[in-house]
């Protein structure tokens, strides 16, 4: 009987370890927070070329992460890419109407992310609005081509 | 036979792979008696028990137990029928993860809702009957072969079955435990009014407990009768078996080429070449 009690204790501990491990993975490793979707609001931005931007990429302002790329789809009206950004609530009603969004690369080979920078317009963007001023990703091939054609004309 | 038949085996055919094991076996096993099924090794006696217990399905023919066709029953009905049967396996087949007490209690626990106290009484009663009440805390690994078989016997009778099937109960036992087992089987059969089927090739012991004997060879019943009948049976196969003669219709030699050829043929060809 005593042996079976200690066995049951071991099994209980085992299951507990599993649950705690999963909680650790969720909170510490994937940075999950319990206050999930309600704490964000969404803005849209159209880019003529997004390069290698992926959903879930970082959105940062002055280097501080303020949100994520929610989704990327092709806008069939203009044939450019419509990127939906979800930003933290703290920024709601703070981003000016002439703010710019640029697709940047972290480091030489790093991932691509969206960088926001503030403008000076007193009017601000609300949930679902679109950022007008955007800067597409730099595509290496295009840069090289430009460089070569400049060389040729010189 | 005037006895009420408990088991009827009717024109049974069974084959495993390409080898035919039974070719039309007929048997009637009377209620409340010890019936022995004998025959040389390899004649499928254990297979016959498995067919009776419903673990194997025959190619043709049927087995009736108390009027029910074993192989036509649903799985559930078959398991219900098995509650009325006990089977003693050659090796004892005790559950290695349970101790002696729990092994005997096992059928009671799964088939009855008896309170623990009553299960305890019943288990101790059965263990007392096989003389192993003191061994109840041992694990199967700590038992000798004979003791394991006695525990298995206690387990087989735990639910007070109407029928017990014994698969080679005497194989590999020393003379003392053999005598103990013979006594136990005899006593249990009388005390509980059981129907017993004993599969064995130990002639002496089987003859002392059996009321009726079937002799199987080459897929048929070749003889049947009381021990006294078989003792004077003139069938060569039965005679050879009962009297333990090394050679006869059951040959001593496995089929082979002529001895002379086998020994000399090889050298002869080599010499010739």
């Amino acid at each position, binding site marked *: 009987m005593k042996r079976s009690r200690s066995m049951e204790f071991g099994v209980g501990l085992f299951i507990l370890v599993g649950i705690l491990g999963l909680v650790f993975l969720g909170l510490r490793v994937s940075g999950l927070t319990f206050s999930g979707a309600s704490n964000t609001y969404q803005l849209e931005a159209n880019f003529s070329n997004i390069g290698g931007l992926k959903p879930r990429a970082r959105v940062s302002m002055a280097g501080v992460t303020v949100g994520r790329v929610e989704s990327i789809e092709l806008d069939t009206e203009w044939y450019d890419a419509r990127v939906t950004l979800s930003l933290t609530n703290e920024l709601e009603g703070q981003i000016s109407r002439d703010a710019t969004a640029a697709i940047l690369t972290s480091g030489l080979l790093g991932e691509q992310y969206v960088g926001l920078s503030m403008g000076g317009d007193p009017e601000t963007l609300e949930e679902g609005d679109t950022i007008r001023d955007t800067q597409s990703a730099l595509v290496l091939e295009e840069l090289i081509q430009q460089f070569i054609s400049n060389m040729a004309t010189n | 036979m005037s006895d009420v038949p408990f088991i009827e085996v009717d024109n049974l055919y069974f084959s495993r792979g390409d080898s035919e094991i039974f070719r039309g076996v007929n048997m009637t096993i009377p209620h409340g008696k010890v019936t022995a099924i004998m025959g040389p090794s390899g004649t499928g006696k254990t297979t016959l028990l498995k067919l009776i217990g419903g673990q194997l399905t025959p190619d043709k023919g049927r087995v009736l137990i108390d009027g029910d066709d074993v192989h036509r029953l649903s799985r559930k009905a078959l*398991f219900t029928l098995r509650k009325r049967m006990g089977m003693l396996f050659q090796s004892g087949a005790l559950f290695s993860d349970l101790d002696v007490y729990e092994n005997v209690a096992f059928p009671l626990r799964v088939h009855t809702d008896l309170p623990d106290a009553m299960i305890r009484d019943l288990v101790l009663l059965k263990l007392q009957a096989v003389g192993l009440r003191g061994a109840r805390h041992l694990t199967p690994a700590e038992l000798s072969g004979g003791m394991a078989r006695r525990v298995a016997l206690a387990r087989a009778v735990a639910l007070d079955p109407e029928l017990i099937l014994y698969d080679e109960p005497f194989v590999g036992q020393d003379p003392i435990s053999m005598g103990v087992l013979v006594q136990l089987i005899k006593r249990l059969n009388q005390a509980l009014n059981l129907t017993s089927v004993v599969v064995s090739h130990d002639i002496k012991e089987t003859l002392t407990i059996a009321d009726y004997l079937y002799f199987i060879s080459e897929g048929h019943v070749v003889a049947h009768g009381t021990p006294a009948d078989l003792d004077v049976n003139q069938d060569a196969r039965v005679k050879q078996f009962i009297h333990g003669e090394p050679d006869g219709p059951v040959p001593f030699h496995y089929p082979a080429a002529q001895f002379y050829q086998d020994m000399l043929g090889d050298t002869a060809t080599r010499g010739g070449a």
Partner: protein
Amino acid sequence: MSMKGGQVAMRITRLGRRSCDLVESLGRAGVFLAQSAVGIPSAEGFRLWVRQLHFVGVLSLAIVLVSGLFIGMVLALQGYTILVDFGAEDALGQMVALSLLRELAPVVAALLFAGRAGSALTAEIGLMKATEQLTSMEMIGVDPLRRVVAPRFWAGVVALPILTVGFSVVGIWGGYLVGVEWLGVFEGSYWSNMQASVAFINDIGNGMVKSIVFAVVVTWIAVFQGYDLLPTSEGISRATTRTVVYSSLAVLGLDFVLTAVMFGGL
């Protein structure tokens, strides 16, 4: 000439028979799984399940955790030497965590589980079959699929995902020890880079799905090989080997398929 034709015909016949055997044994294994896995849970069944969970789960924990620790440490060491060339050693946490969660933890834990618990399950059930315990259980009127196989199957299905979580956690910690404590990667970037790139549903969730699939397959193979083996000592040793070989191949093959579906954009 005619003899050659005969040999070819014989080969084709043999191939055909082998394929039929394969399909038949697959069918047998499927029916076996359905019969043993589906059943009404009972208090007695729960007790048996706990006992088996102890055997396949708790007793496998040590080997799985130790392996996880070493693999995490090696990942950090190897990753660092590659990443430092690009000045990207800050991405170490991300690399360690993603490789563990998506691939290494589910696969390596499943392989260890097949070797440690799967082979033991096969041998145990096989021995019960060889000593006629399963037959005698059937004769007592208890279905060995329910009583012997089902608790072992469900214990395996529950144990492996838990072991996989443990493997990941310990591996990430091992990566931390080597990367941050030893090689001097900045602690903040180890964790924050990890958090920025690991998604709960996509990475942890998919890893867990993999691990559950592996758990079902490995335990299924193990209990079926035990139940279906030839009840001799040679039969048991062969079935134990088969369990490890088949499980490993199934895990690696399925891992490719699952990875293609989950992360390959199919």
